[in-house]
């Protein structure tokens, strides 16, 4: 039920954005004076930039990127600010640890799928210690004991078995991703919701999900458009795709 609501909202947002795309202004045929430097004269033919990322849906992605900025500005960040005002630091740390414990669970599952015993035992050790000694994950005892913290998700699992990133994709409300990782969110989400439904009563499902997103946003320092560079979209795209390549290799 909740899953359906989330999916429905996402698809609605996507549909709206797609509609906005198709009605965008058409470039007017107009002649301009040639600038001092032009691609024809400076860039060799057939040049492929290293910073290039396969992005056939760029028009839509840029609109979602812009949408995410506005969502951040008017909804997400004000909520995060409120959260930081209302909740003292120790409580926020507790919340963060709690959700990280869930994320370690995700690593456990994906380590099995990747047949990676070391990561499996590391993450299992973390979950066991933190869920018990760490009072249901509220205290991150494992990190204090210098347990390594591998991080694996289903996107990485697909990558591990040779699935490429596919087209770059900016996901509404969430941010940079690609087709593979975007798809990977679904199984991860499914597993997590099974555990969540086990742990929390029905009435708490939505509040816990919301708290999870607020905690996630509160711990990501990135702010849209703050680099001021007109090339920010491309830079974020390249950084994301490179980071994910490294994550899969790790």
């Amino acid at each position, binding site marked *: 039920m909740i899953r359906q609501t989330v999916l429905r909202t996402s698809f609605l947002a996507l549909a709206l954005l797609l509609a906005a795309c198709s009605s*965008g*202004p058409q470039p007017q045929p*107009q002649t*301009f*004076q*040639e*600038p*001092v*430097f*032009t*691609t024809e004269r*400076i*860039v*060799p033919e057939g*040049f*492929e*930039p*290293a*910073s*290039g990322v396969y992005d056939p849906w*760029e*028009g839509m992605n*840029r*609109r979602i990127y*812009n949408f995410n*900025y506005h969502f951040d500005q008017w909804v997400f960040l004000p909520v995060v600010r409120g959260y930081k005002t209302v909740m003292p630091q120790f409580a926020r740390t507790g919340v963060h640890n709690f959700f990280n414990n869930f994320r370690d669970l995700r690593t456990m599952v994906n380590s099995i799928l990747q047949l990676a015993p070391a990561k499996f035992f590391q993450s299992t050790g973390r979950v066991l210690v933190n869920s018990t000694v760490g009072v249901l994950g509220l205290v991150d005892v494992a990190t204090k004991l210098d347990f*390594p*913290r591998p991080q694996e998700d289903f996107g990485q699992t697909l990558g591990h078995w040779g699935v490429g990133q596919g087209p770059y994709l900016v996901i509404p409300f969430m941010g940079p991703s690609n087709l593979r990782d975007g798809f990977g969110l679904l199984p991860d989400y499914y597993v997590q919701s099974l555990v969540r439904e086990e742990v929390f009563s029905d009435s708490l499902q939505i509040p816990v999900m919301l708290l999870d997103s607020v905690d996630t946003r509160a711990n990501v320092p990135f702010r*849209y*458009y*703050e*680099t*001021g*560079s*007109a*090339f920010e*979209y*491309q830079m974020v795209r390249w950084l994301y795709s*490179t980071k994910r*390549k*490294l994550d899969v*290799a*790790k």
Partner: protein
Amino acid sequence: MACWCGWLLSTAAFATVENYGYPITDRFVATVVGTPVEYEADLPKSIPFKKRRIDIFPDRTLPDVLWYGHELIYSEALQKHKAPLIFLIAGTGAAHNGGKNTNMARAFYQAGFHVVSISSPTYPNFVTAASKTGVVGHAEKDAQDLYRVMEMIWARLDEKIDVSGFNVTGYSLGGFNAAFVSKLDEERKVFNFERVLLINPPVSIYNSISLLDRMIENIPGGPDNFEKFFKELVEGFSKIYKEQDDAIGGDFLYKAYKAMDLQDEQFAALIGTSFRLSSGSLVFASDVVSDFGYVKPKGLVLDRYADLTEYQILVHRLGFTDYYHEFFYPYYREEYPDKSRDEFISAISLTKIADYLRNSEKIMVMHNADDIILEPGEIDFFRDVFGDRATIYPHGGHCGNMNYKDNVAHMVNTFTGGGAR
């Protein structure tokens, strides 16, 4: 008495320089890697360093492609009691909250200063929000832009905080800017700066950017092999990243350097590349704001969803020297009809205000003898003009030692009463 203290302290400073403990002696490595964590100054991890926005030109309309650049973003960390205020100016292409400014803010906040941190005039957000022309890199005009920003921020703070005096510092191009801001303050007298510290400034901007531009030629096989070089570098990093247990931490670059066995040429290429990436964003912003027609056709209006990949590739193939010759000079030519291109460009230099710097006791310099942005011999300009007021460390590259504990102490002491008076 003050004289006597000054003599003692400056002797002490020389002694420190002689037994200098900053560990990296290779100038290129120092520039890229910075200060290994164990050698860093002990500074508070978290200070109330808050982001603020200010509308410098309320009537300015920006082209849609830069729609988000209307307000200038800066940071401040304010004391609750009466205290001196220090303005920090970031280096080329760097933001108010970049690593170096943040670290300086921690040091000065801990030492009891109100801190106001401003992006470099070459940071795209400054270009769009606070540069009067949008065409930056002009010594006096950048200083005027910075001064306007400082005045407007001060107008906001005046009611909020109790200030006992004003100071300014900056590193790299920010140090260069600080010198011209100080000069302007002698006429405008809004702040009457008590002390000014220039950290690793260039002498001549054009000489320094020429050096940085040429570094990209160190890429094995030349700039056209940029892609291959870049991929190899990322692969090298990935190997180290893979072996690390934790995520990318403070010492990642240092570990990477130790593990990868990179040569000086590769470091130089890396520096040149990073310089080109930041200058590319700047040049494009300038072109859009001024509608000059440098890479974007004059008159063409780009919207916020425009695909800019082509422009990005183009500006990354151009040097900052190209900007000075083909954009900056033609843009300002009419204002200086009696100057040739070379005269005009070479005038963007500290030598232009050497007399002021020579006679202004409040201005100090902290520099490195092996700084990579100086032409051979240029370091002597500081020894000659500033005399005792210049401290030249034997190594540290370009700003590589800024977080080193002795250097941080030196920075702070300069403003808290230490240093030659």
